């Protein structure tokens, strides 16, 4: 890649996408140099794909949470880009235990300590976690 081939396809996926990273390219004398790049179309497509996948899963899950078939836990898990394995690691629980907490009945019976733990992992208050469905329906 030569210096004038360094792509400047601006990323526009999330707010504040203005980082100009360094890539290495060859100048007209054949010497390598670092050049700032606003992004590359190929890379932007791949990043966008990853985010679209997250957004779609999140929207699906939200529907199930509002319909009462899932507890709010999987919604916040996906919102924080986690999977069950990672959430279980943060919560200090087995994966099957976390999956059980996805059931609304089981979730509603969780003790305060466990709810605090989850809220802390998601960086929200316990009320935001447990009141998610009510808050969502009232807005």
């Amino acid at each position, binding site marked *: 890649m030569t210096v004038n081939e360094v792509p400047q396809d601006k990323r526009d996926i999330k707010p504040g996408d203005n980082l*100009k990273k*360094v890539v*290495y390219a060859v100048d007209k004398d054949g010497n*390598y140099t670092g050049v700032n790049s606003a992004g*590359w179309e*190929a890379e932007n497509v*791949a990043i966008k794909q990853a985010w679209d996948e997250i957004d779609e899963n999140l929207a699906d899950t939200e529907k199930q949470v509002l319909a009462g078939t899932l507890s709010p836990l999987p919604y916040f898990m996906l919102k924080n880009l986690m999977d069950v394995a990672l959430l279980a690691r943060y919560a200090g629980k087995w994966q099957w235990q976390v999956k059980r907490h996805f059931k609304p009945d089981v979730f509603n019976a969780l003790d305060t300590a466990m709810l605090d733990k989850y809220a802390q992992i998601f960086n929200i208050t316990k009320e935001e976690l447990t009141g998610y469905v009510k808050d969502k329906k009232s807005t």
Partner: protein
Amino acid sequence: MSKEYIHHQHAHCESGVTSNLLRHEGINISEPMAFGIGAGLFFGHLPMLKVNGVPGTTYRIWPGAIFKRVAERLNISIKAERFRSPDKAMQALDNVLATGKPVGILGSVFYLPYLPEAFRFHFNAHNLVAYGKQDQDYLISDPIMEDVATIAPADLVKSRFAKGTPEPSGYMYYVTGTSKEMDMAKAIQQGIKQTCFFMLSPPIPWFGNKAIFLLANRISAYPKKLPPRKAALYLGNVVRMQEEIGTGGAGFRYIYAAFLQEAGQLLKRDDLLEYSTELTSIGDDWRNFAYHAARILKARQSDIVSYDELSELLRKCGTREKDLFKKMEKLKW
């Protein structure tokens, strides 16, 4: 009184941190040089190790290796520590910062609010430098960023103690002493030898040059074995690992070519300069692969012909690299 820390932007986090920490000690070493001496170039594809449901692909050596190898090869003494307790880890960081020394830190990008949101996944092997404190906040020099940043202690703790694979466990590292006796020629030679070894020797299919062909085989099987959406996700991840932030383009191939060039100029060796040119051209092939992969992603359909063509493009990269490293393995020093 300690001297002022100067931030330089780089392509890759760990070789960038290495370069910045050593420059602070008066050792003028470029990012490509750190990457080459630290033998950062690699390839690995692990179909069984799924990250967020997608097989893992890497273009570089495991985290922590580059800084350690560079220090060892240039006779620089360092201290590297891990911690169980977040409090102890932050106290240890404060203690070193109080002496005026910048400190390399391993952390998760998800908990670094100064990074652009689009890049903030649960990637736990990011390297950055803390170079001081301002009131409670830490002054951060993140090599991939154009400018320095600050971070609140609570965020830094979360990043340093992120869970998942790998777990940084508060890992931090810094230079404790430098030596006058630095043999650059020997360090370069050791770096190149190690990279050739890692690329050519692993007897298992998941690491080194062989893994490029493994991935090529897998890619041609994607449309037959996977639903279209999954096939596209798998492919998209390969492109991200190759081109998203931190690789300097073409999955570190351009950085390594820049290293070979700098080494060739320093040691006045035409063979290294030739290999640099060859690797630049191989890097262009990798970019071509990513370009065509992205076209498939955009089309949002799995077309068996294009996955096969893609697999061929990848094989070409693998064959040319095998050729190059076989030649480099036989270099006379």
